[in-house]
């Protein structure tokens, strides 16, 4: 379990990454010191509420942040090299080749004016210098790999001729075209209906094992995490609040926010219509971001010390936690027990 402290085995290490958006009035710190690592060949889930900065973290990794956004600090080590120090030309060689990305919106993420084949083969032309004919042949192979029926026909179709699920498969085919070592999937199934969701996740999992990829899977669905991830990073207001292997997260969650997320999950044996416990309050707006622990205003255990920002502490297993409860400085109820009500998911 100590993979994440050994940098040789991590394909990606993000340290204290900071990305801000500069609006007229203020600096919105969308990603505010994010730290996590992805061990080689493993899947890391990045979970958190909407607006917690998951997409911005992943886009920052590929340096795809556009104005008014800007990466303002930290480092992103990919295979030991800091991506933030690379030139734009070097980054282009990495994008779509060594690190690929799948986006949240399959309906709008493909260019409506080019065929599926043209869009996939572009990756081969850029990164492998293939000619048109070869590139199309490889594209057809890729379409076959992601389970698209009659790929010879599909390759000449335009995105509008495909369903959402098919488009997401095309996106995956495009992302995996050049055998990337790391795949970043930003909520790849959110926009799809439930049966298609399961198929797409199964596909990603299957391809990961076959191609020995590392995956960063962004989602706000803990059910998806339980089924696909090896590690989980929980994000809240631009910061990682907990990082642990998937078993620990579900059996022994430590951060009150993680617990809140788990409790709001419908357990398998309960009818979804029953009232589920929810985390009280809502995500603070950038203007009223608390100085101390970002979660304190919503935390049922919040104490005096929570008015200062806790640091991200690593335990002997390599799991990380950003919460005062687990430190010597804790000044609240010494007997406090943070645990989820329904932990049967782990079984």
């Amino acid at each position: 379990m100590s993979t994440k402290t050994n940098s040789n085995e991590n394909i990606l290490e993000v340290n204290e990454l900071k990305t801000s958006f500069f609006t007229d009035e203020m600096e919105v710190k969308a990603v505010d010191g994010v730290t996590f690592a992805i061990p080689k060949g493993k899947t890391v889930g990045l979970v958190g509420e909407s607006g917690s900065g998951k997409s911005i973290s992943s886009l920052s990794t590929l340096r795809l942040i556009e104005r008014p956004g800007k990466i303002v600090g930290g480092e992103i080590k990919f295979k030991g090299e800091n991506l933030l120090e690379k030139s734009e030309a070097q980054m282009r060689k990495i994008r779509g080749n060594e690190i690929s990305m799948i986006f949240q919106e399959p309906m709008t993420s493909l260019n409506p004016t080019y065929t599926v084949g043209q869009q996939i083969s572009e990756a081969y032309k850029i990164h492998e210098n293939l000619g048109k004919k070869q590139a199309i042949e490889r594209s057809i192979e890729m379409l076959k790999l992601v389970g698209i029926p009659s790929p010879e026909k599909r390759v000449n179709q335009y995105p509008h001729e495909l369903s959402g699920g098919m488009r997401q498969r095309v996106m995956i085919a495009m992302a995996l075209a050049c055998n990337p070592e790391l795949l970043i999937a930003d909520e790849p199934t959110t926009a799809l209906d439930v049966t298609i969701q399961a198929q797409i996740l199964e596909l990603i999992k299957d391809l990961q094992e076959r191609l020995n990829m590392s995956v960063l899977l962004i989602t706000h669905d803990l059910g998806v995490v339980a089924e696909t991830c090896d590690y989980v990073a929980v994000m809240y207001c631009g910061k990682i609040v907990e990082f642990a292997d998937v078993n620990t997260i579900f059996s022994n969650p430590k951060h009150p926010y993680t617990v809140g997320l788990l409790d709001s999950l419908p357990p398998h044996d309960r009818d979804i219509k029953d009232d589920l416990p929810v985390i009280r309050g809502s995500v603070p707006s950038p203007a009223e971001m608390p100085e101390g622990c970002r979660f304190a205003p919503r935390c049922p255990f919040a104490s005096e010390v929570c008015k200062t920002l806790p640091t991200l502490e690593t335990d002997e297993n390599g799991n990380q936690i950003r919460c005062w409860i687990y430190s010597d400085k804790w000044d609240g109820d010494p007997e406090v027990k943070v645990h989820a009500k329904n932990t049967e998911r782990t079984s």
Partner: protein
Amino acid sequence: MFKFIVRRVLQTIPVLIGVSILVFSLMHLVPGNPAQIMAGESAPKEQVENIEERLGLNDPLPVQYWNYISNAVQGDLGSSIRSGRDVTTEISGRFWVTVELAVYSTILSVFMGLIAGIVSATKQYTFTDVIIMIIALFGLSMPNFWLGLMLIQWFAIGTDLPSWVPFFDDTAWFKPSGWGSFEQIVLPVITLGTAGAAIVARMTRSSMLEVVGQDYIRTARAKGVKERVVIYRHALKNALIPVVTVVGLQFGTLLGGTVLTETVFAINGMGKLIIDSIQARDFPIVQGTILVVALLFVLVNLLVDITYRFLNKRIDLD
């Protein structure tokens, strides 16, 4: 698609009928006896009657309209009062001049407009962008005839600058009138194309800015596509779809809008034919020319609609 074309073609029929009624009524909307007006105030009675006879002005209006339309459909638009020649012959000599003028001006608008629009969009909010947009605003708000006169003053007659001013001391590079040679074409095309270039520039800019923010542009970047290729391959192709419409409509407008430019530069096109014929009170020519221009306008719009639909069918499923 085929159904759409048929429907769209059928839709032009009421428009054409409306136009023909309007054109036909022109003669009768003028106060007084049209025959007298055509013949002139002091013309002898026989001459007026002669004109009335020739144009069938004594028939009831619906009959006159029917005659006019049924002849027009067969390509007979009557004959000129002044020269006595067929209206169609008079027009055919002028038709291509105007079409050429409109085509060159459209090419200029598209060329200038696209470049300016793309540069502006890729450099949004920079000094370059602001300057281009200010120039475009000027281009849009400058009256045609004024621009034409200014161009003639500066680049056909020439400036009065003393001879020690380099380059600009003698700027009479082009001809102020006529049509055919390069020196004659440049100034009228600039005059007519400037407003269009401004419109295309603004349209391209806003369209580009919208497209550049789309998800598929991010996808292209995430694939490792060069920024230049992202702009010219991935963004431009999509951004051009609305621009095509604007250009098409612009071309139609130019066809009808050549009147002032042709007059300023003494170009014998359809626009000048209309003006000259109005002054000469040669109604059959006025009617015929307006009818042809209107027909052309409707036709161009039809083509634009179909093209747009074709380009856009990949986007809206409808």
